[in-house]
């Protein structure tokens, strides 16, 4: 009996592994294909029977680094994302603290407004937001990009969920001891909810780093492009389209690979943060 049971278990594990392997191959294949294509010559890439390049064309990568502005776009994205995230974290923390721990009239209304905005399609705001930035002379500037994106409604939610787990008694005790809200926030609340801050940071950094639609609408100066817009320009302009596939793939690899490496080291935070803080307590 025991033997049959063990074989049955092995069988189900094998089926599970097989199904997971199929899903895994489907998922990883585009990345693999991107990297192997980046190392091919122009002739090799047009022949689907060639999987690996005969001689890896590392020169493709070299030419991206030396002749294309892609690294400049990476720098732009890093710069804008870092500043945007800093503001999103600061502003989000403050308002989440106020909504959870402070008593004032209109608190519920305030939260209802934030919640309502979360559901709405952001793109519906783009035309008026564009006009506002144009009126402020902030089109084609990093300032415009950063201030129009300095509040993260998702982040406010995430922190609110985390703050609500902090025992109210702790806050009251600190208040009685004469601590200011500012002090309580950073000395009591923030240390207890550190993991939500890390999740917030990683998720929003990635979102901002990758963002495409809004940045491409408000900047047409090639010098100010973020990676997504820059990569697209590299893809369609400069004669790249259709003829320079190895270079296009090398460019994509240079953009995608660092993100995959970053993810490999921070996977835990993404997975815990995404799955855990949905506001749905099971």
């Amino acid at each position, binding site marked *: 009996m025991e033997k049959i049971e063990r074989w049955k278990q092995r069988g189900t*594990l094998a089926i*599970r592994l097989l*199904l*997971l392997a199929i*899903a895994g191959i489907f*998922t*990883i294949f*585009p990345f693999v*294909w991107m990297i192997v294509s980046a190392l091919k010559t122009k002739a090799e*890439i*047009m022949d*689907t029977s060639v999987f690996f390049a005969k001689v890896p064309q590392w020169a493709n990568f070299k030419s991206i680094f030396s002749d294309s502005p892609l690294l400049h776009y990476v720098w732009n994205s890093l710069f804008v994302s870092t500043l945007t995230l800093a503001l999103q974290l*600061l502003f*989000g923390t*403050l*308002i989440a603290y*106020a909504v959870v721990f*402070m008593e004032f009239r209109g608190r519920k209304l305030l939260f209802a*407004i*934030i919640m309502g905005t979360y*559901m*709405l*399609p*952001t*793109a*519906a*705001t*783009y*035309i*008026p*937001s564009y006009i506002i930035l144009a009126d402020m002379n902030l089109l084609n500037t990093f300032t415009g990009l950063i201030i129009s994106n300095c*509040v993260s*409604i998702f982040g*406010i939610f995430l922190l609110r969920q985390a703050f609500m787990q902090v025992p109210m008694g702790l806050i009251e005790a600190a208040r009685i001891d004469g601590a*200011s*809200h500012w002090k309580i926030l950073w000395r009591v609340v923030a240390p207890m909810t550190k993991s939500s801050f890390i999740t917030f940071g990683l998720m929003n950094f*990635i979102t901002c780093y*990758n963002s495409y*639609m809004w940045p491409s*609408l408000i900047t047409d100066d090639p010098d100010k492009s973020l*990676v*997504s817009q820059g*990569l*697209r320009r590299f*893809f369609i302009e400069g004669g790249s389209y259709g003829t320079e596939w190895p270079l*296009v793939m090398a460019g*994509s690899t240079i*953009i*995608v690979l660092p*993100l*995959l490496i970053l*993810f490999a080291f921070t*996977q835990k935070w*993404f*997975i815990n943060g995404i*799955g855990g803080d*949905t506001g*749905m*307590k*099971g």
Partner: protein
Amino acid sequence: MSRKFNWKRWCSVMAFVIPALLPLVVFWIYPILRSLYLSFTDWDYMSSEYSIIGFKNYISLFKDTRFYEALWNTFIFGIGTVIPTIAGGVVLALLLQKAFKGDGIFKFILFSPWITPTVAISIVWTWIYEPDVGIANAVLKFLHLPALQWINSSKTSMLAVIIVTIWKSLGYAMIFYITALEKVPKELYEANALDGANSWQRFRDVTFPSISPTTFFLVIITMVNSLQAYDQIQILTQGGPSGSTRTLLYMYYQLGFEEYNMGQATAVAIVLIIITVILSLLQFVASKKWVHY
């Protein structure tokens, strides 16, 4: 309010609220109201003068076959991405439910598309879909299936965009379900096993009801995302060929930022908002019936 107004307290509340509230009003709330107003005008962005034309934008929209095409495409794209993403996410999470050596690598691989820029991976998929020398058709040929024109034909372009979207979001749904499955109380399974239930019955009677809040949440999130899909459409097809992948959001983009028809564009935006609100309300009503918290 018999109590005296406490200025000091009010100031400290404002100091916490204003930094986020100000941008929220300027770049979210005001623009939505402004969009509503603009949708009743004939503004073309270039001229400083415009007039209020009532419901004309909406009437001409509702007479435009392009609008119904876009509405239909949005519907197909929504159904075609939301259902497979959620069903696939459950299946993958169930496959990973019992820990085994090396399961982390699967989680890593399956989730990785979500963190990469949609633009970069859409470029890669454009290359995969290339009709003559792309690998997608090479695979079909290997399986003795007829080659497809993928993003070059209006018959298959929507399918191609949907595949990329599912590929990108499957891991995201999976992660939510992995956490949800961990939270299902063990006693429920034990009681179910005592009743002699098989694995399908166990899923139907214990697992599915227990993870219904996650399903509800994911349906809303993936639906809102599908209404807002832009990056992959812009790279793969630009709404074409012949409008076959033009969703409402893409139509909004074309009307506003290509044709500068701000009145019509904002009218589409308002329709988009109304659809989102209706779908969210419908789901909240439905959730009362079958979501078990």
